[in-house]
């Protein structure tokens, strides 16, 4: 097995080669949560997959669904090292990423943009992982309890 950095279940580096600690679970942490999915999902949102314990929202967005990235400091590191730049909401394109910032500045959630936002509100649809529930395609602002008041969009620009 190749050498791992501390707290790395799989090898994962930023574009600049800084190791990204990660956790790759194999068991669903809360199997009894599944039936609750329908109670909180918006009727215009689409359930995409059942829950997969291997990755979380950040693992979906920044690690190709291969593992969980737990610490939001690692997300910040990826944004910098991978040369993400902020994108105005009206200019967002599919493939960009959405990062949800809590009031205290911490990163609460992340998602991949899957549609171009339409006027007048310019809110794109995104694909994100909802904790113990699974992947959902939804309007960026139609997700429960995440910090929808401060969603920032980013893109890697050559």
């Amino acid at each position, binding site marked *: 097995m190749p050498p791992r950095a501390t707290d790395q279940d799989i090898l994962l580096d930023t574009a600049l080669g800084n190791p990204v600690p990660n956790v790759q679970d194999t068991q669903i942490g809360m199997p*009894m949560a599944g039936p*609750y999915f329908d109670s909180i999902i918006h009727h215009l949102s689409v359930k995409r997959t059942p829950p997969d314990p291997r990755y979380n*929202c950040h693992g979906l967005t920044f690690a190709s669904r291969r593992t969980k990235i*737990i610490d939001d400091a690692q997300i910040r590191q990826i944004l910098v090292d991978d040369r993400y730049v*902020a994108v105005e909401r009206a200019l967002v394109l599919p493939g960009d990423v959405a990062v949800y910032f809590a009031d205290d*500045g911490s990163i609460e959630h992340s998602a991949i943009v899957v549609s171009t936002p339409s006027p007048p509100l310019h809110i794109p649809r995104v694909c994100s992982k909802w904790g113990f529930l699974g992947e959902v395609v939804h309007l960026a602002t139609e997700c429960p309890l*995440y910090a929808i008041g401060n969603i*920032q969009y980013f893109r890697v620009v050559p």
Partner: protein
Amino acid sequence: MISIPPHVLEVLSQCLLVANTPSFVLRKFSESLTIQSLSEAASVGDLRDALETELCARPFTFDRAVMSYALLVALLLKSPSDAATMGSLEGFSQLVFGPSLLALRSPRSFTTHVDRPAILGNVQSQSEPASTLIIPGA
């Protein structure tokens, strides 16, 4: 006996369902006024006993998991050092975020503040080359 109003448990349930990280659980549960009040009103012993009862219950339902996290966060708010001993309770391994929560000495130590856009540029237009990116503070 410690109880939490159903409407509060419902909100906490949703928080737990969509939690991707332990810091999210800690932040959302800590923000609950009910859990803050519980932390102030109940003793460490009462919280521990209640947590032990929940963890040992069979079947260990989702509602019991929510209650367990509520009690654990109340303990963390009240006494991080006492909370740190909860990992030895029977059934604690059912709380997937439990060890991560206990690893924190205090809730504040876990939150990472992000100096977000100050270090990043802004895309002003889809057609502009990268050389025109505006770097705040540059």
